[in-house]
């Protein structure tokens, strides 16, 4: 004969089984399969960097120093440190992206800051090797167990966290600006900063114009509304990282926009806007990930 405890245990087991079967069935049918076209769209081909040229800009000096950057034939020209289309830094797409940012800014500094020979030499030192070094720094988990594990298993185990690409980018660019400040005279650095600011403002305005053009299809603005919307959206902090042109390709979505940027809309327009589907397409999702992404065409 079964003891009362066993009877209760069996009861609970079967009840659990029954409930889990119900949940499992519901879960199965709440996961709607993607329609074929959307599945295709998701198969964004994440090509390995070795397989397809990345639009990474590699200073020619960097090619010489590192010696491991494979440069696409015909692009390696020695006069300047602008941009050649390279295959990446040691097959590291994240470092390639960061190198691209540094190389572009180096080239900007060369064009706008009127450097002397000494400064040019120092600028050249911020190359692929420098970027790789800065990008490679990783945070270690601070807990005791991880520390003990590291002692026995080596520095790469026991809680070493993989770096977040956005954090790595921020760290590299902060280091870059600090170094640049050391190299340049204050007035030269101010010129550089002014140019970077203009570039950022331009990007914000471009994205704002795109968002307004997308919204205009559904909301029909007058001239004043359009101007006011572009202005308020370009001042919104979220606009800079937006991949705005993707809203032309995905017309059923609009970005999540703050109420403060939409004061120009009428209540009727707000009502339409509220009923539309929202999705945030940001640069990080496409360009600044771990791998360079190419959309299969």
């Amino acid at each position, binding site marked *: 004969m079964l003891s009362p405890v066993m009877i209760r245990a069996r009861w609970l087991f079967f009840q659990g089984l029954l409930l889990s079967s119900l949940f499992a069935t519901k879960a199965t049918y709440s996961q709607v399969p993607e329609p074929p076209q959307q599945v295709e769209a998701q198969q964004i081909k994440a090509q390995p960097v070795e397989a397809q040229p990345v639009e990474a800009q590699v200073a020619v000096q960097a090619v010489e120093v590192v010696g491991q950057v494979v440069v696409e034939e015909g692009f390696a020209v020695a006069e300047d440190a602008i941009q050649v289309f390279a295959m990446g830094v040691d097959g590291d797409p994240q470092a390639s992206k960061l190198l691209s940012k540094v190389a572009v800014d180096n*080239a900007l500094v060369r064009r706008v800051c009127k450097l002397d020979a000494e400064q040019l030499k120092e600028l050249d030192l911020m190359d692929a090797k420098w970027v790789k070094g800065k990008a490679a720094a990783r945070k270690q988990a601070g807990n005791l167990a991880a520390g003990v594990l590291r002692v026995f298993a080596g520095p790469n185990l026991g809680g070493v966290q993989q770096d977040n690409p956005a954090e790595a980018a921020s760290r590299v660019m902060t280091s870059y600006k600090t170094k640049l400040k050391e190299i340049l005279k204050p007035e030269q650095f101010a010129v550089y900063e002014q140019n970077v600011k203009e570039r950022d403002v331009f990007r914000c305005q471009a994205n704002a114009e795109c968002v307004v053009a997308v919204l205009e299809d559904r909301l029909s603005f007058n001239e004043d509304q359009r101007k006011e919307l572009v202005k308020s959206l370009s001042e919104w902090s979220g606009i800079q990282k937006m991949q705005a042109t993707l809203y032309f390709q995905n017309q059923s979505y609009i970005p999540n926009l703050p109420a403060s940027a939409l004061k120009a809309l009428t209540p009727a327009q707000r009502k339409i806007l509220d009923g539309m589907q929202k999705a945030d397409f940001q640069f990080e999702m496409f360009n600044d990930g771990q791998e360079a992404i190419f959309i299969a065409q």
Partner: protein
Amino acid sequence: MKPFARLNDQLLRWQTISIVWAFVYTVVFTNFVFAQQQDWIQSWLFNGRTEASVRLGLQNQAEQKLTQLKEQCCLTEEQATKLKLAAAGDVNRFFHEVEQARKATKGLDQQNQNAVQEAWAVVSPLTTRLNAGLYDEKSLFAKVMSSTLDAAQIDEYKRLLAEQLERRHHAVVLTTVSTIEDSLPLIADQRKKLVELLDAQKVKGSQQQGMETYVGYAKLAKVPEAELEKLFDKEQMKVLKYLRERYAPIVQMVDR
């Protein structure tokens, strides 16, 4: 105690059997019922929204469009009423097709890839129409408009559409130049002149969905190289040449 213990054992056995049956029944029945009840239209076409909210959204859009037309093309009340009816007709026609598609996808076996493909072939055109907006040139709204508005009003409407398209292309040009700046540095004057150069290149008509994003690069590929050489130095031109070659095949597609 003994008879009671036997009864208890018997009860437990029956209980166990009934629970197992209930389990089997639940899995089989709910699978069947969910498969029958699953609304693929709501999942695929409406992205989870209700039909009522999609309908309301479309009606609001029509209302907004009419308000704009009234202001900009000076519609009479009679014209506005006709257009309102036409827009309602477009919405009704769309939802009639949605209902047909719903019937065609009812009871779809999601494990059967061929069936999923066939169902998607039915839903896909509706998705495209819904995304593009119902009031395009093939709509009842457009047909009624061409027969109801007078020549001056039609000209004004065409001018407004052309201006809107130009604004869209200008927006794409701006983002294209901004993206190019990820690959080569531009000073303020170069940026401004590049935007002007690209804006000056015309591409034909409204673009098919998805291609509009490439309008900026297509325009870059159309700019005469000599014009760019006046603006950019040798190293900058390397990047621009690369981009021009890369996007040259797109020109034909965008320029249709």
